[in-house]
């Protein structure tokens, strides 16, 4: 069902509530102006929802329409008579799968290295009180704020001097370093949430510390590892700036590949249907993944402030 028709149904529902006999509304024990305000606000909210979701809808809609339709003066709002030809054209160009492979390789290296490094560090700061712990946490928090834009020149020179320019490893190293601090921060909360007493009880029952950790603590941490892993994956998958600086046109991650459609066509007509199909291919897996991790990400960023 399209977003537009959904909203119409929603609005129809709101209108029928609005026109309900006044006595009924009054009997519900709510004052009439208050009820009316709530309905009006509901309509406003649905309109805002439609506006916000519209660009994503427009991408999918355009990706399904042939270029002959997209080139007409009047836009076509619904993808009737659409097809997957634009997607086929994207696949046929052959560059998609190369970029997909590159993006996957970088993302997987980033996720694995990041989870391992961040997990060990999270263990250190949540299970031990040691000299320098506070400084380390402080450094983690500052480093996660540093913008790539303030460092990419030197990172470019660094990778050039050690021969890792234009390589999967070079980009991955930068990504792991960029994502590890926030991942430590996310995982720290999860590790701290697993009671150490539980582990100790298992050790009393005869398990070694490593066994106790693997059998008791690790399974409890799985949700945290999944959330952090998805976070790291999304960061690596979406990253543009570092990839732009470190990679050239022979090695494009998906964001660079997607940019190529716009960039190369600055001076000629763009096949927008194909561009939107490409865009859809890059966006949809991310949107699905994102839904899983969203709650964890937000709470990690502002939980201190929310709790006051």
């Amino acid at each position: 069902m399209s977003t537009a028709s959904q909203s119409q149904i929603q609005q129809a529902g709101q209108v029928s509530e609005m026109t309900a006999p006044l006595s009924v509304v009054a009997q519900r024990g709510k004052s009439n102006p208050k009820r009316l305000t709530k309905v009006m606000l509901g309509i406003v909210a649905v309109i805002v929802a439609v506006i916000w979701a519209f660009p994503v809808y427009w991408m999918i809609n355009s990706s399904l329409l042939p270029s002959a339709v997209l080139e007409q003066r009047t836009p076509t709002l619904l993808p009737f008579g659409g097809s997957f030809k634009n997607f086929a054209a994207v696949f046929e160009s052959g560059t998609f799968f190369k970029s997909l492979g590159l993006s996957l390789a970088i993302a997987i290296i980033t996720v694995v290295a990041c989870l391992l490094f961040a997990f060990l560090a999270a263990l250190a700061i949540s299970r031990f009180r040691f000299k320098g712990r506070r400084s380390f946490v402080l450094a983690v928090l500052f480093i996660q704020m540093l913008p790539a834009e303030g460092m990419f020149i030197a990172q470019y020179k660094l990778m050039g001097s050690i021969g890792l320019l234009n390589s999967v490893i070079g980009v991955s190293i930068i990504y792991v370093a960029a994502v590890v601090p926030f991942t430590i921060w996310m995982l720290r909360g999860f590790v701290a949430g697993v009671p150490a007493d539980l582990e100790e009880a298992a050790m009393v029952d005869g398990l070694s510390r490593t066994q106790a950790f693997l059998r008791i603590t690790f399974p409890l941490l799985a949700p945290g590892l999944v959330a952090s892993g998805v976070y790291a994956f999304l960061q690596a998958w979406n990253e543009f700036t570092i990839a732009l600086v470190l990679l050239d046109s022979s090695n494009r991650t998906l964001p660079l590949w997607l940019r190529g459609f716009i960039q190369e066509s600055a001076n000629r007509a763009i096949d927008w249907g194909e561009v939107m199909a490409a865009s859809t291919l890059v966006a949809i897996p991310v949107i699905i993944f994102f839904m899983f991790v969203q709650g964890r990400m937000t709470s990690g960023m502002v939980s201190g402030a929310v709790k006051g």
Partner: protein
Amino acid sequence: MAKQSRPRSGGRTLAPYLLLIPAIAIVVLAMGYPIVWQLITSMQKFGLAQQFGKAPEWVWFDNYIALFSNSATWIVVGRSILFCLVTAAVTMIVGVGLALLMRAVGTVVRVILQIALLLAWATPVVAAMTIWNWMFDWDRGLVNWLLSAFGLPFSGHNWLQHPLSFFFVAMIIVVWMSVPFVAFSIYAGLTQVNTEVLEAAQMDGATASQRLRLIILPIIKPVLGIVMLLQIIWDLRVFTQIKLLQDRGSIASQTDVLGTYIYQLGIGSSDFAMASAMSIFVLILTVLLSWPYVRNLLKEDEAA
């Protein structure tokens, strides 16, 4: 969250330090070394001659002086700050409005709104940029068609040609992408507000604006402050959106912000000394701005 975890005391063990080694090593390699390199390079004369092997000459703060006595730098800095503040302000106003709206409406409508916001939030930035480029396309874009349909003279209007409308488009895109985070965070803060207190205040005759100002605002003030700070920090470093809008044929010198200016200096002109000096400036600015945010997170760490 249960806080039964009792950190092991006794600082004689090496274990925590060993556990930190991999994380520290990668950060030192990929960030520590580059930052030190930038600090050194920013105090050296480093031009094309050095690219071809000539030893760099130590010039202390000459690069910084040259950079900040150049009016072009100040124009970029001013432009970035102005763009950042306007965009952050609009994002906050819309985000807070939507958070209040989420609270005011029923569950079904709220979930619809939340899903719509999540869609915008989840869209990868480069994909979002291609969509908005398409919608603002001068020739076949939806925006021009819509405005023309209302009788406005926007047929064939090129939004990206003039700096002002270029940044207007950039602002719309950044606001679209940033509002969901703001709205969700503030909404999370709003759920801490006690409904009974609000109803009691209403019965005592407090108007809606009084309730907002005297009850709701003090409770969400911490999250409001942090979210606003994050918006300012993020909007100041905006790079991808500007770079991808410039791709469509805008004049870079009229639309450069901090990030694209560094890119232009370093990658474009190979002037690594100036690019490094500018990078150090951006890093110092970020650290200064980040301090309240970091302190807030640290407070949480100490409470745990």
